[in-house]
């Protein structure tokens, strides 16, 4: 060993610094990729600072205007539409309720389904699992008409439960939790049984705390997924006070009728606001997310 290092040492200073073309190539791809993602966002940001007249005259430009505050007020607190009920604030509230309800509901249902599948001697458990799994092949878009009809007949139109409940049965969450539960050591279940913990206690006292990182990871995915729902809220909400942000933005840019000019500033401001919560959630839960999907704390 010592001989080896001694003979190698003098050769080190001889090595020259070289530009590696592959490095430059890699960086170029990364930089171009991030520009591709960022430039539209910057355009949105720029248009929120100028007046609508200027935007329609010059298009997006490099000038930073002074209308940011005014546009913000208009977007958040001024109603659009007929009823005067869909301000930015109400849409933000609806979106938050949808995102949280969607994520928490999916996690709760998925965890309980996975618990039943993994820890109980069910007849046809494997069959049930594959049945749940095949629903991945049937996304909302495929079954939207029957789902709508059911929701309508149950009187769920324009309600939060109508917005959330039909969406929360989740094969994805069930699958992830099933895999996770299967990796929890068998001995832990047995120790808990001997310690006198019944099925409910074991679930709440041991399984849920153990799944923390997994829950956080699921929460990110599902919150962003729920927040960005567009088709279902469009179908199920017809009253303006129930609009979510993602659905409401579209309503505003459509106002190009008559002599009105489109409210670019307002729409883009709402778009920015709609982007923000998912970004914050991802930033906040990021470390949990990586942990949940890569390592297990057992």
């Amino acid at each position, binding site marked *: 060993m010592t001989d080896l290092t001694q003979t190698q040492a003098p050769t080190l200073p001889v090595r020259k610094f070289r530009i590696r073309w592959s490095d430059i190539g890699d960086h170029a791809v990364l930089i171009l990729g991030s520009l591709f993602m960022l430039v539209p966002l910057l355009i949105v940001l720029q248009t929120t600072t100028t007046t609508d007249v200027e935007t329609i005259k010059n298009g997006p430009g490099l000038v930073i205007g002074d209308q940011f505050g005014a546009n913000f007020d208009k977007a958040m607190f001024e109603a659009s539409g007929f009823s005067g009920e869909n301000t930015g604030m109400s849409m933000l509230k609806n979106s938050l309720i949808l995102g949280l309800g969607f994520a928490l509901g999916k996690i709760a249902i998925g965890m309980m389904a996975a618990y039943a599948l993994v820890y109980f001697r069910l007849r046809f458990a494997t069959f049930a699992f594959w049945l749940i799994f095949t629903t991945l092949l049937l996304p909302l878009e495929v079954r939207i008409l029957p789902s709508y009809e059911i929701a309508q007949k149950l009187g769920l139109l324009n309600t939060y439960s109508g917005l959330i409940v039909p969406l929360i049965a989740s094969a994805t969450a069930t699958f992830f939790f099933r895999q996770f539960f299967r990796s929890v050591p068998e001995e*832990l279940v047995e120790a808990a049984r001997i310690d006198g913990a019944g099925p409910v206690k074991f679930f709440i006292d041991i399984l849920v705390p153990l799944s923390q990182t997994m829950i956080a990871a699921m929460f990110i995915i599902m919150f962003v997924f729920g927040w960005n729902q567009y088709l279902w809220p469009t179908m199920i909400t017809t009253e303006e006070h129930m609009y979510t942000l993602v659905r409401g933005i579209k309503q505003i840019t459509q106002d190009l009728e008559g002599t009105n000019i489109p409210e670019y500033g307002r729409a883009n401001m709402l778009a920015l606001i709609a982007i923000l919560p998912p970004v914050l959630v991802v930033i906040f839960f990021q470390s949990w997310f990586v942990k949940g999907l890569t390592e297990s704390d057992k």
Partner: protein
Amino acid sequence: MAQVSLQNIRKIYPNGYEAVTSTSFDIADGEFVVLVGPSGCGKSTLLRMVAGLEDITEGSLSIGDRVVNDVDPADRDIAMVFQNYALYPHMTVRKNIGYGLKNRKTPAQEIERKVDEAAKMLNLEPYLDRKPSQLSGGQRQRVAMGRAVVRDPALFLFDEPLSNLDAKLRNQMRIEIKALQRRLGVTSIYVTHDQVEAMTMADRIIVLNEGRIEQIGTPAEIYHSPASTFVASFMGAPPMNLLEARLEGGQVFVNGGTPLANAQGRGAVTLGIRPEDVAFDPAGPLDFHIDIVEELGAHRLLHGQLAAQNFTMHVSKEVAAAPGAVRVGLKADALRLFDAETGKAL
């Protein structure tokens, strides 16, 4: 505290595999019984049936005066220490130890008192507020012990609790567990595949092989009078020497030559002799060709051939030894004879 009684216990898995054939034995109050055998011999299955983690296919199991076949593990008044400790990773040591009491609706003050008492007994006091991941292997082992001790159970069950520790710690924990069991006087069943653990810890050893009991006895009985060649070769390190021998005219011969001992019967037998019951003896009846000398400090192991069969001899450190041929004698009262076909002791 309680005696445990197994009557004709069997375990057949749904796929038809018979893991434990009809087994009966009794364990006295306060006794420390070790189930030992190679992997797959059914010892863990037997323990898990006693714990209630595995259904009993046939037979009856009683702990104390109660038949507990259909009693839930939580209500059998047992505590179990698992091979991987099975500590709850998200709970502190204090909560880990107290969890069983909490589930039994013990008042919080009493839980605290009992946990403190158990922690004191096991020298865990400085670690009570740590998580299991912040503890060393030996400390985790102690927490697992604490979880068992704190509940004052009628029966302790140990499922290879030391197999994840390094050799030094294992020796130390072995003594600690034994001392603790002595002090508390709780009936215990301990499963291991390590015959040293079995010998050193047990009041009685039960040797299992392929789902059957080979022998039940005190460590000395098991060691000196093994009931079969299986027990003879499984217990003891190095194991008992087993030589092909012949019975003729009331005497035992190995490879012809001088008769070694008197015994009734005729035909082929297996002769067993512990390595330490062999001694150098210039006038001895047998030739031993030493191939390898294993130096172990306190003693030496000499491996080689005797009558063209593998043979090991144990000599103390005062006895010099070198590869080559020597004459040896066998201690006559230490000779054991086994049926050459069935392997049972004669």
